[in-house]
């Protein structure tokens, strides 16, 4: 049970950290922040990687893992790029001035 109890602490502290991280967000950034946080939630790609690595020669499992990895990376790469695209438009306006 040691992993489990440790993991519960991690879960608790991680949640508290998340609650504290964003207190005051200017409305301008709500959309980019949502999109960025969304990209980070694609961190589940690590689980997909682990699944593939540990599945040995089990073909159905390899395929499930690979599809899962594809979905996660679609989320991660798409999410970060689209967030950057949005934020780039803000910074361009600033440097122009």
């Amino acid at each position, binding site marked *: 049970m*040691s*992993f*489990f109890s440790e*993991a519960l602490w991690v879960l608790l502290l*991680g*949640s508290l*950290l*998340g*609650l504290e*991280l*964003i207190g*005051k*967000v*200017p*409305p*301008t*950034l*709500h*959309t*980019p*922040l*949502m*999109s960025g*946080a*969304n990209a*980070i*939630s*694609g*961190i*589940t790609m*690590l*689980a997909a*990687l*682990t*699944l*593939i*690595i*540990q*599945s040995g020669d*089990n073909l159905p*499992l390899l395929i*499930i*893992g690979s599809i*899962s*990895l*594809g*979905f*996660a990376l*679609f*989320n*991660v*790469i*798409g999410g*970060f*790029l*689209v967030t950057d695209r*949005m*934020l780039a438009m*803000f910074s361009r*306006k600033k440097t122009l001035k």
Partner: protein
Amino acid sequence: MTLIGPIKFAIDLLAVLLLALGIKGLSKVRSAREANRLAAIAMLLAAFGVLMNSQGTIGISIHSWVWIISGTLIGGLLGAITAKKVPMTAMPEIVALFNGCGGMSSLLVALGVALFPSSEGSDGVVSELVRNFSIVVSLFVGAITFSGSIVAMAKLQGWLLTPSWTQSKSRHFFNILCAVLALIGGIYLSIDGQNGLFLLVVASSFLGIGVTLPIGGADMPVVISLLNSYSGVAAAAAGFVVGSQLLIVAGAMVGAAGLILTQVMCDGMNRSLVSVLFGGALGASSVTGGGGGEYKNITSCSPEECALTLEAAERVVIVPGYGLAVAQAQHTLREVTRVLESADIEVTYAIHPVAGRMPGHMNVLLAEADVPYEQLKEMDVINPEFPATDVVLVLGANDVVNPQAKNDQTSPLYGMPVLDVQEARTVFVVKRGMSAGYSGIKNDLFDLQNTSMVFGDAKKVLGDLLVELKELGVGSKG
């Protein structure tokens, strides 16, 4: 070889630190772009850590590499293309789509582990019951996130309408039935790790659909934000399934941060999360109490009259809203304001915190149309300036300019922060028809003496306005 463990540990710690800094930085304009990159680097590091650790300890077979690389290439490439191609107006639905895929990924991991339990997730450190329970949570939340996000996207795209049965009480029975079935499936699955799997996944998927389908377009961003939070929870659950602390921290952080963001959005709209989730679409329930009544004194006018008034103005304030975003009229708007500016008319934009299709979306759209950042004024800054304003042009906004929120204590809108446009000398409201805003409440602004309605689609009206202004010779200095 013995160094691999500590190095992996160090990489994980660094990745968590960077992710936290990333989320933090994303909430400040100055640091947002760097923060986004920081978070991306953290993800790369984390993936590298997993690969390095596995290669060094158990080794990664060629098979695995092939499937890792193909999954990465296909998913990554599609993601990159989607991110480059998608128009800025479609941002809410694209966030929903990405988010749904994240949920699907967690679901598939749990599915894989549940179907082939031999693939020991974490070298047996997690007791069987705990692992089964993690699988249940991951499947349940992952399925809701996926089906809910896809429905949200389809509704925002206009591919799905709101079926009438979802507005009646029967939807609650449907949802409760789905929840109960999912619970039964979940209990079965946590006990023996096999049975109930199919029931759980199908029932949770239908629950996601049943909850999201009745929600109206304007409330959808709140739902997407909430689902975003769920996908963090799903990731954390997947972390329990495969035994990864890093995944648990990151998932928990995103889940909690998403919850806060959802709350912030609700506050801006003067809605409670409960009423968004259970109140049904378009405030069908909110017409009770005050705020009703007929319009008595509507003045409508043509784009031509509007152009004449604009020509004579010195200070113009634009109030862009949901309707502008839906009509994709931000570029036409920019052309109109360019003409006005070249005639030495001062133009500013009043941005309500929830303007656009989701909070902050309007800033993105106007930035895309090359509107200078410093012309965008937030509500608290612009409100004292309305009395000194000649013309206010309201484009597809409704509830956010309703004076009832300040004047009428019986109104459901009472207390919501609004833009005081009625203080200006003349107000033009560009709107497709007399239908109410998403709150379903009459807008007293339309009845005022100094308000004129210009009926039509925002893009079309702005196009006509542009023509009229040019015919009047506005801005063409000779």
